[in-house]
């Protein structure tokens, strides 16, 4: 088989491996990993009306994987009657963060300004994270819709990280590193992260050191969280497709090695 044909065959197998499970969706039995349980318990242990700062630190390209994570986390936070302050440190995450926060808040019957608010985007994430440590209203004088933040009832007892019980960074890149370096280390913030699966392994050292108090990774993390929360969502829907595609990748690796083994056994022409 020529190199081009091999590539075409791999592309076809990957396409079928992703597309067919989405059509014939099957519920897979699965359990929550200790990391997901830790993230869940972390939110469960917060007192009533505690303030959670949710940072939407992702781009539109990873929306398919990030959306179920954001949905299930916000659903849990609102179900626990916690107050939410939304921000974004990525320009693209601003709109998507606003959409999902407003949608879940409306679904749970939360009131804007009292139970939640959205502050929008601030450029230069390091300065923004450090600035919120000094004063959130100084960093965000107005919310996403242009209303002065100091007039929002939510900010009556909210000034900086001292009043924030938990920060959740929903990210597809290295933004949780900056949250760890500039919010956890100097201000002692309680940080939980929800990441795309490819980024998760980079944050296990922070989890084991206690700098991150919870880690939720990819569609499987979302599906596990939905299991703990006893609600159906995008994580469970995508779990079968993602699991099958991962098996396809494994088979491709094995096939590549088998082909390589037989190729090397052939005598030189």
């Amino acid at each position, binding site marked *: 088989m020529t190199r081009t044909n091999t590539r075409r065959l791999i592309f076809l197998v990957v396409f079928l491996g992703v597309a067919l499970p989405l059509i014939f969706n099957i519920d897979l039995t699965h359990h929550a990993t200790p990391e997901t349980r830790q993230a869940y318990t972390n939110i469960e242990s917060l007192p009533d009306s505690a303030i959670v700062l949710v940072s939407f630190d992702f781009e539109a390209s990873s929306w398919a994987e990030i959306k179920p994570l954001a949905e299930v986390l916000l659903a849990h936070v609102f179900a626990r009657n916690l107050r939410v302050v939304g921000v974004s440190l990525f320009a693209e995450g601003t*709109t998507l963060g606003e959409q999902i926060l407003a949608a879940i808040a409306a679904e749970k019957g939360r009131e804007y300004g009292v139970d939640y608010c959205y502050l929008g985007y601030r450029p230069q994430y390091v300065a923004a994270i450090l*600035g919120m440590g*000094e004063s959130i209203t100084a960093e965000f004088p107005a919310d996403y819709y242009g209303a002065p933040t100091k007039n929002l009832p939510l900010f009556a007892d909210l000034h900086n990280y001292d009043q924030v019980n938990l920060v959740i960074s929903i990210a597809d890149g290295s933004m949780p590193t900056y949250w760890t370096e500039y919010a956890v280390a100097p201000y002692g913030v309680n940080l939980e992260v929800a990441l795309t*699966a490819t980024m998760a392994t980079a944050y296990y050292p922070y989890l084991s050191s206690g700098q991150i108090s919870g880690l939720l990774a990819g569609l499987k993390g979302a599906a596990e969280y939905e299991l703990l929360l006893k609600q159906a969502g995008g994580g469970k829907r995508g779990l079968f497709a993602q699991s099958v595609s991962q098996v396809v990748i494994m088979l491709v690796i094995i096939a*590549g090695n088998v082909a390589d083994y037989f190729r090397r056994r052939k005598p030189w022409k």
Partner: protein
Amino acid sequence: MIRKVATIVAFATGLFMLVQYFLNADIVSLIYRALLDYYQIIFAMTMIVGGITLFLNHARTIAHGQRAGWYSGATIAAILFMIIAALIYGTGADSPYQWAFNNMQAPMQATTFSLLAFFVASAAYRGFRVRSRAAAVLAISALLVLIGRNAFGEMISEYLPQAAGWLLNHPSVAAKRGILIGIGLGSVATALRVILGIERTYL
């Protein structure tokens, strides 16, 4: 002269940011807050400079009649559309800006990103070759984590997720932590070199 002034500014700012962490005075807090504001203002200005440069480069491509002119035209049209739509109609939920973002930008980016799955599979077929003991350890670890973190892995055996968890929480963390400590020490050394004026390549 300009280089000397820039070095002095870098020294003073770097030293202040280092020292302010240990001080608790209103004036220090005020200067610190002002510096953070300037940091964001400078960053926002670089975005404007970047936008103008992007626009000019593509305009030059069109003016020179190059083959990629159509793509440059599309880029400029998209930039202008988003800016004008946001200025006229705002960025609210029902605005044309929002419509273009939700129905054009987001799906296009997701499509490009999803193509990675095909290239990752193709690269895995060609690149993940077991030709040494180290490569064998790497491949077996990768396959164990893949199947252990997969819903099918749980169905095959309860030990597979445990094995994947052990690999992620012990050998992987140990290696990663070593790298992180190295990066941290390197960052401190580089920061000191900049503050003390030894490292001036940024000028």
